[in-house]
């Protein structure tokens, strides 16, 4: 028997559908008659409402495109997204096939259609595309075909990533040249507004894809990468009649992603989270910055180390929880969604998949909240080694030592005595304070080819509660060595969170970093989460205080990081769509507040919910005001 009104309603809908009378159903629930009657009648009226009918002419035109696509597929061609060249396509395809078949032998051309840029047949594929262009005689058709071909390059890049292959220069070069030719044709032709808009949007999407790919390029592709990003960026400016331009030299040392507060220095030059960035006519997005405004900046890094903002996005302070990250092993995998850490996340064709999805695979998913749905923006996995094994994440908090440079492709930063490599793939989050020497930072890193490569550096705000008299957290144990830094935290004291990999009574290896084992503590089980406070003495990290060790469930550890969107009455934290339950054994560092950034280590419990093991609240004060919740 149904209990709640929701269950009763559902049961009655089912019963009515099976032929039961409305009154019979209501009679079973005398206490709910009025509510139930209204809702059931409304359901009925909804089901009686006639459908909106499509316009027959449009439906028929769509059928022609549908048929043409089916014909392409029968010919063995790879499906292309949203191509709309109407009647011209069959002619172009036929011409291309005939001409190249004569020149090279039909079998080779046919075989080349589905190949990727790492194949020797790829040049044949590009040549056959060129032939199609020769047989397209009107400019608009040619521009559209060039845009199609440029977008085909995007699909090839996605496929290479999916196969775990590096991106070679040839695909970037072809993507760039086809885009540039299309834009050249369309410039100054306002009558082609639909194509101009498509060129603009496609260039933006392609630039956005490439900006996240520096780490996936083959070594020889860096020049083509710089040229391709510059061309795509300029295509957006040119299709909007904006005179600025980015030069490939501006991108010689890749890109950098910084989030922080904006401060103007001299005209056109701003400090973003303490990092100097130039804005000019070629910068896209929210370019009218205000001092103190929080922004996300993607900047091009020139050979001289100077940063030029490519895009600026003001952080919407009213929607703080729209993006978050979930890491762990994939619980379920299908074509259009995955389940990770108990969270169901949609995979769409725009999701940047950097690996083949398999059950059990360790991945990191950047999740966007779109219309209330959790949608994967990107899915990444380990770059090297066996596909299912990911190097464990090391989280390390300490004081930034030495000069912080962002000028080179690869920069070395020392945080709490530990050396980290900062690459174009490293995100810098300087929302809470500016990036500078002697400030405290949190580095999320993983071992790659024997080096600790920072994935993310988060500058931490000074926390007045973390002085030497406070109990509990970093710097709380008041040892005799060292003074304190500007934040009231002792120099040389670091906080480590990571996975116990090996060790004995003397030394522990935690996510690739060795520490002197704490005294009188049982050695944890391999795979356990360990959080501790240590002090650096020369090359050694000496544990001062073991905060906690956790043995995760058989399904391993998962991480969620983002901004707390909501705290339920029972303490459950909502980070984006991710719900994280707190139990009696959960250890919480800091005070969870709506609007604060949080990093959570958790494990799936028996009811497939993510149970927090260790919660680290990074902000003593919320970064953003509480957002309203609906429903």
């Amino acid at each position, binding site marked *: 028997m149904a209990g*709640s*009104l*929701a*269950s009763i*309603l*559902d049961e009655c*809908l*089912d019963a*009515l*559908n*099976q*032929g*039961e*009378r*409305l009154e019979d159903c209501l009679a079973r629930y005398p206490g709910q008659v009025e509510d139930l009657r*209204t*809702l059931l*009648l*409304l*359901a*009925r*009226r*909804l*089901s*009686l*409402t*006639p*459908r*909106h*009918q*499509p*316009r027959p002419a*449009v*439906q028929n035109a*769509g*059928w022609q495109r*549908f*048929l043409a*696509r*089916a014909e392409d*597929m029968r010919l063995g061609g790879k*499906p292309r*997204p*949203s191509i709309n060249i109407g009647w011209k396509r069959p002619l172009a395809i036929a011409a291309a096939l005939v001409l190249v078949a004569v020149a090279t032998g039909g079998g080779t051309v046919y075989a080349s259609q589905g190949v990727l840029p790492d194949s020797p047949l790829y040049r044949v594929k590009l040549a056959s595309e060129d032939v199609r262009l020769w047989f397209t005689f009107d400019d608009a058709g040619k521009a559209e075909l060039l845009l199609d071909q440029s977008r085909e390059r995007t699909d090839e890049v996605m496929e290479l990533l999916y196969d775990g292959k590096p991106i070679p220069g040839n695909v970037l070069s072809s993507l760039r040249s086809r885009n540039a030719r299309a834009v050249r044709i369309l410039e100054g032709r306002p009558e082609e507004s639909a194509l101009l808009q498509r060129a603009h*949007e496609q260039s*933006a999407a392609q630039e956005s894809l490439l900006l996240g790919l520096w780490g996936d390029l083959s070594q020889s592709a860096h020049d083509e990468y710089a040229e391709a990003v510059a061309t795509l960026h300029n295509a957006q400016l040119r299709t909007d009649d904006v005179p600025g331009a980015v030069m490939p030299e501006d991108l010689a040392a890749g890109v950098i992603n910084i989030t922080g507060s904006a401060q103007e220095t001299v005209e056109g030059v701003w400090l973003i989270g303490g990092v100097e960035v130039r804005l000019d006519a070629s910068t896209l997005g929210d370019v009218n910055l205000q001092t103190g405004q929080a922004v996300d900046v993607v900047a091009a890094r020139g050979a001289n180390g100077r940063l030029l903002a490519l895009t600026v996005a003001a952080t919407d302070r009213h929607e703080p929880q729209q993006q978050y990250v979930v890491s762990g092993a994939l619980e379920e995998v299908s*074509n*259009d969604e995955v389940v990770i850490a108990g969270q*169901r996340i*949609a995979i*769409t*064709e*725009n999701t940047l998949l950097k690996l083949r999805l398999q059950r059990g695979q360790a991945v990191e998913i950047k999740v*966007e909240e779109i*219309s*209330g*749905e959790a*949608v994967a923006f990107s899915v990444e996995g380990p770059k090297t080694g066996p596909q299912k094994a990911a190097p464990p994440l090391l989280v390390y908090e300490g004081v930034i030592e030495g000069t912080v440079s962002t000028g080179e492709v690869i920069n070395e930063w020392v945080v709490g005595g530990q050396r980290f490599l900062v690459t174009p793939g490293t995100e810098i989050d300087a929302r809470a304070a500016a990036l500078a020497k002697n400030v405290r930072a949190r580095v999320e890193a993983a071992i790659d080819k024997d080096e600790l490569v920072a994935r993310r550096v988060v500058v931490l705000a000074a926390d007045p509660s973390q002085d030497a008299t406070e109990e509990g957290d970093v710097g709380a144990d008041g040892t005799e060595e060292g003074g304190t830094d500007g934040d009231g935290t002792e120099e040389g004291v670091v906080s480590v969170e990571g996975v116990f990999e090996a060790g004995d009574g003397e030394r522990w290896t935690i996510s690739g970093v060795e520490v002197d084992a704490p005294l009188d503590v049982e050695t944890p089980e391999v795979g356990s989460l360990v959080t501790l406070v240590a002090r650096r003495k020369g090359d050694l990290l000496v544990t001062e205080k073991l905060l906690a060790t956790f043995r995760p469930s058989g399904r391993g550890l998962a991480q969620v990081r983002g901004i707390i969107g909501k705290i339920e009455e029972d303490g459950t934290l909502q980070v984006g769509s991710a719900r994280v339950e707190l139990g009696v054994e959960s250890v919480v560092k800091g005070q969870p507040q709506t609007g604060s950034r949080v990093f959570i280590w958790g494990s799936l419990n028996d009811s497939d919910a993510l149970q927090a093991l260790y919660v680290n609240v990074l902000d003593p004060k919320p970064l953003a005001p509480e957002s309203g919740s*609906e*429903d």
Partner: protein
Amino acid sequence: MYANALSGLIDKPRDAPASAEAESAPSDDILREWELVQRAQALEDSALASLYSTFYPRIYSYAFLHLGDVQTAEDLTSEVMLKVLESIKKYRFKGLPFSAWVFRIARNKLIDLHRRRKRRGEIDLTQPLATMQASPQVMAERALDRGQIQLALKHLTEEQRQVIVLKFVEGFDNASVARVLGRSEGAIKSLQHRALNSLRRIMSGGAR
């Protein structure tokens, strides 16, 4: 009477071919559908025509109810149909109707559209507009006007709107709605309750 009105709408798509409307067990319908899909996977013209004529109007109606704009709904429907064609070889029968798979694609396309609009800073058409002023008498036992439902749906959350459209307009069962939305059946039940409640409030002039 009520039962007759709902019968055939909850478990079976409205536009199912005549043969599927016959008094056969739903599993037979699904199996017949699967047979059609297999022929479409082999790119047989007649099967493709049948899928197109079945799903184009349904996806259009779904898109229009979510977007409220004819051209955008037409574009989205075309995109969905092409995506269905391109992906149909990947479809594997898992006991649920093929239509749940098709609507899952439609939902993902809708998400992509919202994402593009968000990136461009456009207004999300699914956000509530002005408060709907409807007369309380609309609770009579007659079909809703399409304009009324369109306007009322704008006041619901995205998930509530999805549940209303998929379950009551498209006639899916809970399992299929759960499949399309990537939620559990339990979640669909409670969303369905909340959605109908919100709709009732809105239609009696008490929009949020």
